[in-house]
């Protein structure tokens, strides 16, 4: 491994990126810690606060081939007012769509505090020619995206061409201009926690404002140990450079319970300062309904049926 790194490394040595140290991961310890953080019992007023926060940090996502402008408009309406029957539900953080639909979302959310996020850069594989990817990013920003979610070039990363992966992220950051850059690591394809840690550091040093777990397009998505592994990388980064990078967890987060487990993991690892939409996001499509169901269960004491909530 260190041989490969020696052949082509980003600025720094085998266990560092650009002078920032990469801490090795104790996989067993990591999984145990993540599991223990997921046993926290969150009840009554804490649960209400957790549900509220989960909505505030949510990136309401639709990334389907079948997305239509109308569907995105409907999603934007929900984003601003998630529960049509309850004004007290706060808006979500952002709506996340494909670039072609950014103008639609930007128009629908012009008067709204909800940000427009766009995937770009050859999502989900990231294997379009670099010029094309950069052009896509610039296009999305010009069309009104406040945040851009790009993917790490796993092909380059997994074959040890770290410099290439690094340079591409740096170039994407340039192309983003004022927009926030989130880098999707697609942790399910990286193979080990050490690789996830290394990819996290590489993305952060290369200029990512957020690091994000998954595209949601493969089977393995965000898991508690993955979230913890990345949160610890962010903590390392913050301690060594003073730069606060955000964390976005996405893929497979469907229930309110999962959401507050992640809130606990981030809160315990990075501190309460990270539990804001500026530094933490949950990317999800079906999570919002479950959170709203839990919310109304807390309010009315009655279990709800899923059909009473929106399908999208």
């Amino acid at each position: 491994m260190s041989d490969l790194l020696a052949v082509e490394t980003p600025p720094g040595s085998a266990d560092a990126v650009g002078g920032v140290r990469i801490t090795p991961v104790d996989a067993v310890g990591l999984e145990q810690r993540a599991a223990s953080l997921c046993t926290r019992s969150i009840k009554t007023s804490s649960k209400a606060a957790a549900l509220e926060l989960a909505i505030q940090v949510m990136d309401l996502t639709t990334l389907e081939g079948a997305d239509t402008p109308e569907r995105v408009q409907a999603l934007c309406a929900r984003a601003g007012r998630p529960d049509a029957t309850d004004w007290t539900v706060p808006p979500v953080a952002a709506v996340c769509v494909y670039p072609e639909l950014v103008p639609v979302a930007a128009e629908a959310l012009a008067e709204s505090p909800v940000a427009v996020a766009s995937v770009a850069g050859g999502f989900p594989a990231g294997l379009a020619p670099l010029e094309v990817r950069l052009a896509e990013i610039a296009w999305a920003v010009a069309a009104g995206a406040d945040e851009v979610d790009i993917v790490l070039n796993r092909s380059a990363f997994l074959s040890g061409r770290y410099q290439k992966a690094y340079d591409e992220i740096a170039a994407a950051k340039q192309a983003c201009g004022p927009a926030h850059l989130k880098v999707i690591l697609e942790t399910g394809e990286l193979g080990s926690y050490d690789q996830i840690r290394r990819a996290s550091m590489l993305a952060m040093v290369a200029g990512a404002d957020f690091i994000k777990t998954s595209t949601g397009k493969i089977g393995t998505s965000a898991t508690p140990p993955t979230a913890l592994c990345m949160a610890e990388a962010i903590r390392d980064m913050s301690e060594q450079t003073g730069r606060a990078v955000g964390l976005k967890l996405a893929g497979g987060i469907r229930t309110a319970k999962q959401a507050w487990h992640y809130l606990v993991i981030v809160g315990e690892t990075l501190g309460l300062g990270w539990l804001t939409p500026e530094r933490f996001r949950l990317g999800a499509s079906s999570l919002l309904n479950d959170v709203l169901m839990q919310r109304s269960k807390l309010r009315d004491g009655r279990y709800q049926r899923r059909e009473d909530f929106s399908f999208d």
Partner: protein
Amino acid sequence: MSIRLSVNKTYKQFIGGAFERSESGRSYPVVGVGDQLLAHAVQGSRKDVRDAVAAARSAQEGWAGRTAYNRGQILYRVAEVMESRKDEFCAEVLRAGDGQTEAAAAEETAAAIDRWVWYTGWADKFATVLGGVNPVAGPYFNLSVPEPTGVVGIVAPDEPPLIPLVSRLAPVIVSGNTAVVLASERCPLVAITLAETLALSDVPSGVVSILTGHRGELVPPLAGHGAVDALDLTGCDADLDADAARQAAATITRVVSASAAERQWAHEAAQSPYLIDAFCETKTVWHPKGR
């Protein structure tokens, strides 16, 4: 020769096709004839109710979507498995019952199996009998068809333990409903043995869930659950019945209870196609008639 220790069965709840302890981790003692301890049954909680309803909800569309003939085949298989475990059911009824004789227990078991087969036979017939063509004053075909109402919560009667349970469960699921059953609080063990026969037959996961525990704790969350479409409160006492009906009204849930005639469990009056209809909605279709 060494003395053999008996291997006692853990009577777990049947939720979404799996035998599970309660989320709450609790259990309660079940006593039989002469206050003798039979076993500790799971003392379910409202979260077990929630999980069972979620399982029933997700199984309902697939179960109703099967052909009536296929549902009949699957339910007949349940009767076959019950028959092969007749002695076990009989012993279970005998242990739980109120000083029933062996002959009475055997009779109850046989009657319960026969009742299951009787309802199984209705699977592909009830729609013909209960639905039909309506004569209307216009150039239309007008058809009424009974369709399953959805998820049904069943509060099973207390005693005797087996035949009332079968009499209330079979007519609910034969039409394509899925059921969440609260077993008798006093005699829950035979219900779990019935769950084992369901698990061994080809009944899809979630079509029937059977919970055990205290009625006062389990009925309100079941009755108030928004995803439950109908309730059979035959096993509720008067107080609980009124409260459950109020809870059910808040989410517009149909409430059914066995009539006095239907409570003659072993009698033929306890079985009727109208009981299948009680858990169906009538869909009426108008279709223009050509010349």
